[in-house]
């Protein structure tokens, strides 16, 4: 029996502006430790909306969300931020590095925020993550100077810095060419298989989804598979 990292119970979500529309209906599923899950579906089916609820950034929903066995319902904004910091790593479609910092500092930031290790240790760990992803040479470059594919790898390194329970990706390959997409996918696969890293990736790229271990397919705000 493997341990449940993330569990969604009866999640419903409405958009109220301009008119109330139900975008998610009765979402029930769970992600176990070590799972490599892809959430797919057509544009507008609610998969990104679901991801933001699961990520704790969106708190306007009905139902129950458990991360690591803890309910997220009653938590305050600062506590949720702490959960994101400690337990969740993010990879977005548009890299989202902070251009004011160099690559290494970008990776270090969530680690420094967590404040679990001293700065030296965080730096050492960040270098390790960069090495693991083969981009240690970029460490001292400014975030704005690295290429798109490299940025995404830096973002993955940043997602890994606090050894999160789960990495969430919102179309992480959506903005990359085929070659870079493959590199990113291989990294995810390696993380899942070698390091038993739990991954939950939202994608509309069927090819990408096929290669994961488990697919959750959505349509019109429901899980159909």
């Amino acid at each position, binding site marked *: 029996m493997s341990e449940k990292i993330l569990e969604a119970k009866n999640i419903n979500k409405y958009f109220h502006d301009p008119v109330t529309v139900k975008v998610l209906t009765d979402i029930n599923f769970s992600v176990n430790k070590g799972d490599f899950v892809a959430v797919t579906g057509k544009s507008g089916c609610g998969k990104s909306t679901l991801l933001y609820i699961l990520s704790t950034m969106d708190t306007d929903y009905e139902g129950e969300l458990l991360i690591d066995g803890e309910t997220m319902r009653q938590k305050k904004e600062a506590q949720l931020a702490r959960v994101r*910091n400690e337990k969740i790593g993010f990879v977005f479609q548009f890299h989202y590095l*902070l251009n004011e910092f160099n690559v290494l500092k970008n990776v270090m930031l*969530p680690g420094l925020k967590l404040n679990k290790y001293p700065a030296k240790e965080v730096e050492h760990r960040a270098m390790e993550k960069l090495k693991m992803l083969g981009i240690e040479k970029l460490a001292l470059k400014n975030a704005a100077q690295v290429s798109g594919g490299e940025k995404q790898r830096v973002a993955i390194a940043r997602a890994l810095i*606090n050894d999160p329970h789960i990495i969430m990706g919102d179309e992480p390959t959506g903005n990359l060419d085929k070659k870079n997409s493959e590199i990113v996918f291989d990294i995810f696969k390696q993380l899942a298989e070698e390091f038993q890293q739990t991954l939950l990736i939202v994608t509309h790229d069927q090819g990408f989804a096929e290669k994961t271990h488990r697919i959750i397919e959505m349509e019109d705000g429901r899980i159909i598979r």
Partner: protein
Amino acid sequence: MNLKLIISIAKSLLLARWKQTLVAAIGVTFSITMFITLLGFMTGLNDLLDGLILNRTPHIRLYNEIKPNKNQPVNLAAEYKNGYNFIQSVKSGNARQEIYNSESIMETLQKDSRIAGLSPKIISQIFFNNGTIDITGVVNGIDAVEESRLFHFNEYVTTGNAADISKVPNSIILGKGLAEKMLADIGDVVQLTTTKGERFPLKVVGYFQSGLQDFDKVQSFATIATVQKLMGKPASYITDIQVKLKDIQQAPAIAKEFAKIFETDAEDIQTANAQFETGSFIRTLISYAVGITLLVVAGFGIYNILNMMIYEKMDSIAILKATGFAGKDVKRIFLAIAISIGFFGGLAGLLFGFGLSAFIDQIPFNTAALPTIKTYPINYNPVFYLIGAVFSLITTYFAGWFPSRKASKADPVIIIRGK
């Protein structure tokens, strides 16, 4: 909380936009510079103008006013005690201007720890005889040494030396205006007639210039002994005791106390020169108002720049929030930016303000009315610098507060999805 991290992020954001930051900081610098300079200059000027009168004015003056006696005989009579007595045509009595028992009063005062010093004085009306014309004047019998120490008498003696009146027997220092009227040079002998009709020759040893022309046209100074001789009074005859206190603010209270103990009239400096206080107060108020307006304007500059910065950095805010920074942390980052603009801008402002004040302090400023002043007066009161520093931090804090709150409330989902 991890303050170091927040400050390091704030620093990076600041340096990434150093031109904007510089403009904002220059705004603060400029306003603090002007604030310091304005207050320093204005207060310097205030002190100078006040000094014209206040430095020379005793904090408390003990004297006997010529006035009708409060205790008219009818009030003392037993049979009229219960009635309300109306008395008409009351005249001032044969009041003596002399302070009774002046020696023991002075002895008591010398022992009082609240007092910085005292100097006795005789004021007497006289006429200066200049050919056929008699010029009304006032002769002040003073203790030149004490008068100089306490009331800066020597600073206003422009020709000759204040101490000369005690060295040269039967000598006098004339007001500049008075001397000009009589064409009296140093070394000349002027004739005086007292109110009792006695004539007296005195030798001119110096000129006195206070900066107040009307004052200089009538006043003259001699030693106490000379004036006593002039008036035919004994050595204990004193009409005024001038007291300088350690704390000028206590003057009204102490004046009341002395009036009671010594049974004389006692006038405190605040009552005697209320109009100067008012003038200084209003000038200071205006300087503060202008200085604070400058700071508030600089505050709006910071507000604008931070607002712009926050719009520019929305993506960064979203990513910080997504990776675990709470709204509170984001708010602190932007507040740190605002306050560091205030801190460094303010610090530079204090330095420039000091520099500009020092520069103005060197500009020559000569006026006949103010013989002791050679350059523009500046006051370097550290309180202004403290107020400047505190205000620069407070204004920038508030200027940063609203943009920071907006940043802290930014919803990362909306920003990330909006791409």
